[in-house]
């Protein structure tokens, strides 16, 4: 049912170093903090971290799957509150859930939650879709 308070089925994505390299190439963001462990440590990070925009792209995939395609998403935003930490040779989980927070004429607002290693990584994450 599409009604305020309804929860969408949760989905878990897998993030690893290979995915970070693929996202760097597809997005053009080659910042070494997302690929080079030595560099990431040298700037005070705990390890290589995922691009915030990769996390947003995966959560966006969750939204578009529910919305019936990318063309149905009209608004999407999030705050990057904690990094997704990606150690070498490790598959890291990104678990996405959502609750419907508004239903208006032809549009539905989703409040999104993204958790990695038990930590909430996005804040104020919302999307509006045509439904």
């Amino acid at each position, binding site marked *: 049912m599409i009604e305020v308070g309804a929860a969408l089925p949760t989905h878990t994505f897998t993030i690893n170093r290979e995915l970070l390299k693929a996202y760097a190439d597809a997005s053009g963001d080659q910042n070494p903090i997302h690929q080079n462990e030595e560099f990431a440590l040298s700037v005070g990070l705990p390890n290589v971290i995922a691009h915030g925009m990769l996390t947003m792209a995966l959560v966006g995939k969750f939204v578009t799957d529910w919305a019936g395609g990318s063309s149905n998403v*009209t608004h999407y935003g999030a705050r990057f509150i904690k990094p997704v930490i990606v150690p070498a040779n490790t598959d890291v989980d990104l678990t996405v859930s959502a609750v419907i927070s508004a239903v208006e004429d032809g549009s539905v607002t989703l409040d999104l939650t993204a958790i990695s290693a038990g930590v909430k990584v996005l804040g104020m994450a919302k999307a509006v879709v045509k439904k």
Partner: protein
Amino acid sequence: MLNPDSVGRTFEGANSITVTQSEIDAFCAVIGETNTSVAPPTFSIRISLEQSQSILSDPSIGLDWTRLVHGDQKFEIFSPIKGGDTFTCSSTIENYRVAAGNEIVTVRSDLKSGSAIALSSWSTLVVRA
């Protein structure tokens, strides 16, 4: 430090950008999207951050791109991006404040097809002290 005169100003990109289907395909492949007829909602970051960086790198603006961290990101999509679409990009410094020595700048980027805005995005960027 950002030049205070820059706040509220809009800077127009000099070049138009044409999105190729192969760029959309590559972005979709990373996130497991099989329908590549339109770009995923966050695809435009590929264009807008690069364009904003090029537009806002003028020394008179005073934004230090080497120490930037991405704080938040928002998209408003009026018309989904398709392969072959051509855009011009303008960047506006919408908001600026300093907190604990960090500069916090909100840049709005509009992708325009002719005079119509296809997509607006807002990036909050933090210049670390």
